Structures are given as C-alpha cells and as structure tokens.
C-alpha cells in the first residue's frame, strides 16, 4: 500500500500542531515553519499530480480495512488537480501574510494549516460521512480565520457565516443519514452501485437526500438564492484570508461534481439527469446576480466578491452542459478563477492600506504610493478575470463556448459574452477611479514590500502560466473530466482493491 496518499492530510495536521506548540518562540519561527511546510505541500501535490496522471484512480484504505467497509482515500486526476491548486494558492497567500498581515497574535499560521487539512481531506476522501467531517474541520478553521484581526465588521459577518454554515451542516447530516438508511453504505462508489440496484419504491428517499446535498453544496458554492452571505463575508475578511477563501466556493462545486458523478451519476439510477434542467436557470441567475453586484459594488473588495460569484455561475454553466469537453473547460476555468480572484483580493488589501480614510471605496481619494506597479497588476488581473485574449480566462471561456451544442449555445454564448462586457465596464470604472481620479497628496502609508508583490505577481503569473501552457493543462483537464464521466473506472479500482495481508509467521 502506498502511504503517499495520506501525506497531504498529515502534513498540514502536524504543521498546525507544531505551530501551536511553537507559539512561544515568536512569529519569525512560525513564519519559517509555515512557509516551509506550504512549500513541501506544493512539491508533494505535484508528485501526486504526476502519479494521478498515470490513469487508474489510486485507493488508500485507512487502517487497512477492506473497502467499502472501511474509509478510503481516492486519488484521481480531479483530486490531484484540486490539491495542486490549493497548495499553490496557500503558498502565495502565506507569502503575502508574512509581510505583516499575519499579526496581531500568532493564530493565523496554525489556522491556515488546519484549513488545508480540511480542504485536502475533502478533496481526497471517497467516503461521504468523511466528507462531512472534513467539511467541518475546514469550516471551523475558516470561522476563526474570518475573525482574524478583529473588529465589529468581522464579528457581524462572522456571525452570519457561522450560523448559516451550521444550518448547512445539519442538512448535510440529514442527507447523509437518509442515504445511509436507504443504501446501507457510506462509500461513494458503493452507494452509487446500490442506488442503481434499489427497489424503485425507495428512490424518492434517495432523491430527497440528493436534493438536500445539492442545497448544502449550493450554500458552500454560493449559487443563486444562497449567495447572500458571500459578499459581506469576503469583504470583511483580512487580505490573505479572503484570498484563501477563493477556494471555498470552488470546494462546493468540486463536491457537486464528485457526488453527482459517483453517487447519482449514470450508475446511480441517473438522478443527476433529474437535476440537470434545474442547473441552467440557477447558473444563469447566479451569473446575472454576480454581474449586477459587480456593477453596483461601492467597495473594491465587495466587487471582487461578486466576481467570485460570477466565476461560480460560469462553473455551473459548465456543469449544466454535462459533457466531457464542458467539464474539462470548467476545470480549467476553476484553476484560473481561483488564482486570479485571490490575486485581486490581495491587491485590494494593498490598495486599501494606501488610501487612508478612503480605504477601498470606489470614490475619489488620495493617490496611491505605488500606483505604477499596483495599477499594472490590477490591469493584468482585470483583463484575465474578464477573459480578454492573451489571458487564461479567455481560454477557459472559449473552450466552454466550444463545448456547447447549437441549442445550448443560444443560452450560453450571450450569457458569457454579456457578463464579460458588463464586468469590463464595472472593472474599468473602479480601476480608473482608484488609480487615476486622485486628488491631494499621497498618504505615504501602507507601502507594500517586494515580497508582497512577489505573492500577488506569483498568483497572476500562475494564471498567465496556464494560459501559456494551455495545451498540456487542457489535455490534463480533459483526461480528468473523462475519468469523472467514466465512473466505472473507480468502481473497478474499488472492487480490485486488496488490503495488505500480514506475512505468515
């Protein structure tokens, strides 16, 4: 058995614990340990990405229990891709955080690693109850991270965020219990097979469970009627935390892909087909609300939070198309939008620090101290998030449009193009106001260090990088999407799996 699969969970766990115990040695040590571990995690995820590229999903049976009775971790192409994306995002957010925003207090670094523990676990697990547990782990870390830095605005946003997510967790548990009660298993692939062989009289219960799960993941992903918490929460969080949160909505989308392909997919009685017609209007509504919010936002951070909602709407459109090509395009877009939204949140944090009392409100204010480099970065990131040519957003949107059939294109093309146009309008308004419509003297405060620019530039160049390396990345996402649609491959891997036998004495 290959123990490498569990390291993305163990590494953040032990780093987080170590950081808790090392608190008395002061912030410099915490920074070194935290950054070192994050770098190690990037290397580890790249190794796993390379292994997942080999083909068959790999299984790791915890405690050497025969699946489906024990808990399994599953490494397939999609999980490996999410691991790499998260590890890189965390590394750059931490680099930004060590430039000064990890104080006051010493709690940011351990919490970030506990968040990673939950995220990596949720990406790797093949067990539906375990998914719930890892969701709770990452949520608890995110509750505390959101409050990092203190202040009434964060307390108010945190209260809403925590209460909503606790209600979501209750729904998650109800649906897991329903599904277990009907199928008698918790393993995702096994559950899919059992649903296929189920007595039709029990199917309404399964459908109820499936719809409740959709509600839970929809809350995490912030889709149309369930997005209200997101703008105020993301706008209240401190810079590096908001950047890290860019991955949280994507986790909801990931969970939808995972559950609706493996549990309710073609092998699971085709329940996913029941949901598909509903995905279209939800995705379009999410997109529309995101665009309206972007146009109406009065603060830069709020505007970026609505950009996150636009990216969720676009991803849902990709899921609604329900084909390998569309899912592949959506995965590509997921990588791009996570990194670029994170970069924008970090940029907004720097901008906010340099504008004195005007903060990040989109109004006339004092000129920025580093207006040249900030403006350039904002320009590149805005081009990318809108999806104008040389950027990765362009490739993502174009491949999504190409994946649509003629009838689907009638909805998809106008929606994507119009949202792009309106986003350009909104971002050019905020960009020109923040960088050009200035008066008075610069405050001189809040100059960002070169390391902070390295972090922001790193995230932007990651996004540009997947545009330059578009071909290999798209080949990989294509293979990952193919693996998701071929849900039998995982079932085969599960059936052929043999626990390690003890050597005869």
């Amino acid at each position, binding site marked *: 058995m290959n123990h490498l699969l569990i390291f993305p969970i163990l590494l953040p766990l032990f780093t987080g614990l170590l950081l808790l115990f090392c608190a008395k040695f002061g912030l410099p040590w915490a920074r070194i340990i935290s950054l070192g571990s994050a770098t190690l995690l990037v290397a580890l995820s790249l190794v796993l990405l390379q292994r997942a590229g080999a083909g068959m999903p790999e299984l790791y049976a915890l405690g050497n229990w025969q699946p489906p009775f024990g808990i399994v971790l599953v490494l397939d192409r999609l999980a490996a891709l999410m691991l790499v994306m998260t590890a890189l995002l965390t590394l750059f957010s931490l680099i930004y955080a060590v430039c000064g925003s990890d104080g006051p207090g010493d709690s940011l670094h351990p919490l970030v690693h506990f968040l990673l523990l939950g995220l990596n676990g949720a990406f790797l697990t093949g067990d539906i*109850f375990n998914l719930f547990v890892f969701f709770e782990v990452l949520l608890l870390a995110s509750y505390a991270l959101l*409050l990092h830095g203190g202040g009434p605005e964060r307390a*108010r946003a945190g209260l809403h965020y925590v209460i909503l997510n606790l209600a979501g967790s*209750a729904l998650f548990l109800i649906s*897991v219990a329903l599904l*277990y009660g009907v199928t008698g298993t*918790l393993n995702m692939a096994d559950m899919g097979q059992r649903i296929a062989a189920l007595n039709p009289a029990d199917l309404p219960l399964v459908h109820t469970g499936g719809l409740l799960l959709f509600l839970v993941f929809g809350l995490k992903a912030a889709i149309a009627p369930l997005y209200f918490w997101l703008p105020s929460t993301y706008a209240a969080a401190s810079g590096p935390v908001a950047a890290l949160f860019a991955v949280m909505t994507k986790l909801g989308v990931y969970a939808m892909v995972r559950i609706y392909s493996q549990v309710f997919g073609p092998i699971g009685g085709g329940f996913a087909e029941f949901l598909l017609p509903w995905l279209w209007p939800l995705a379009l509504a999410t997109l529309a609300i995101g665009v309206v919010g972007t146009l109406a936002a009065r603060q830069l951070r709020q505007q970026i939070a609505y950009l996150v909602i636009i990216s969720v709407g676009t991803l849902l459109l990709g899921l609604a198309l329900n084909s390998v090509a569309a899912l592949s395009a959506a995965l590509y877009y997921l990588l791009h939008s996570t990194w670029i939204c994170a970069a924008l949140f970090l940029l907004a944090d720097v901008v906010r620090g340099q504008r004195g009392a005007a903060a990040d409100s989109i109004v006339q204010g004092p000129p920025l101290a580093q207006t040249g480099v900030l403006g350039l970065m904002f320009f590149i990131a805005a081009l990318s998030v809108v999806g104008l040519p040389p950027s990765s957003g362009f490739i993502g949107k174009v491949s999504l449009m190409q994946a649509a059939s003629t009838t689907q294109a009638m909805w998809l093309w106008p929606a994507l193009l119009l949202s792009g146009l309106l986003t350009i309008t909104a971002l050019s308004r905020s960009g020109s106001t923040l960088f050009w419509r200035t008066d008075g003297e610069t405050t001189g405060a809040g100059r960002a260090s070169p390391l902070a620019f390295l972090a922001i530039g790193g995230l932007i160049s990651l996004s540009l990088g997947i545009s330059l390396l578009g071909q290999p990345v798209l080949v990989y996402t294509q293979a990952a999407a193919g693996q998701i649609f071929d849900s039998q491959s995982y079932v085969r891997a599960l059936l052929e799996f043999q626990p390690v036998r003890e050597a005869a004495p």
Partner: protein
Amino acid sequence: MEILMAAVIAVLTGCGIYLMLRARTFPVILGLTLLSYAVNLFIFVMGRLTTGSPAVIGSGTRYADPVPQALVLTAIVIGFAMTAFLLVLALRAKAELGNDHVDGAQVAGGTGHFDKTQLDKTPQGNIGPENDE
C-alpha cells in the same frame, strides 16, 4: 415507537427552526442546538429501531447496526465544538457591536423588528463603523 420517534424529531426540528429565525443571538444558538439534537436522533434511527439487540454481528440472530451509532458520536462531538465556538463568537459580537442582534444594530431605518429602546442604552460609538463620525 416509530410514530413517537418521528414526532419527537419533528417537534425538535420545528422548535429549532423557529428559534433560529429569531433576531437575537442566544435564541438562534438554542435553535441550532435543538436542530442538532433532532439530526442526531435522525441519524440514530436510520440504523432502524430495535430493542435489546447487541451492536455486534455474530453474537445472535438479531443485531443493531453499529455504524449509525458511530456516526452519531462523531456528529455529537462536532456539534458540541461548534456550539461552544458559536457561544464565544456571540459574546464577542455582543462586545464589538454593543448589542445581541444577529445583524448588529442598524440605526438608520432599523431592521423593522429591532427593539429601538435597547439602542438608546448603548453608547453611539460602539454600534457600528458607519456611525463613527
């Protein structure tokens, strides 16, 4: 017994949701707690209702499903931790915002159902960042 269990879960859920929709943080926390009790019972009965049978396979012809019992333990522990966290957060929000309304006090216009007499007792500066002149 099935009817009784179903009724208990339904009443707990109903009370939980009612309390969760209240405007003060403490009833909301109580509501979440009641809801988590209902959920825990629900998970427990998903292993089917049996009496007097062991949760170990092989010791008799009838046995209780041990998996939901394990799940319920996990859910209880997680729910307990979350409630503790939420209590601390509610206290913190009370200290930061100067009141225990779930939205914080909204002075201009108000939220409709917010008791304004409460507002006069709190110093204006503590209510929210918009009011800091």
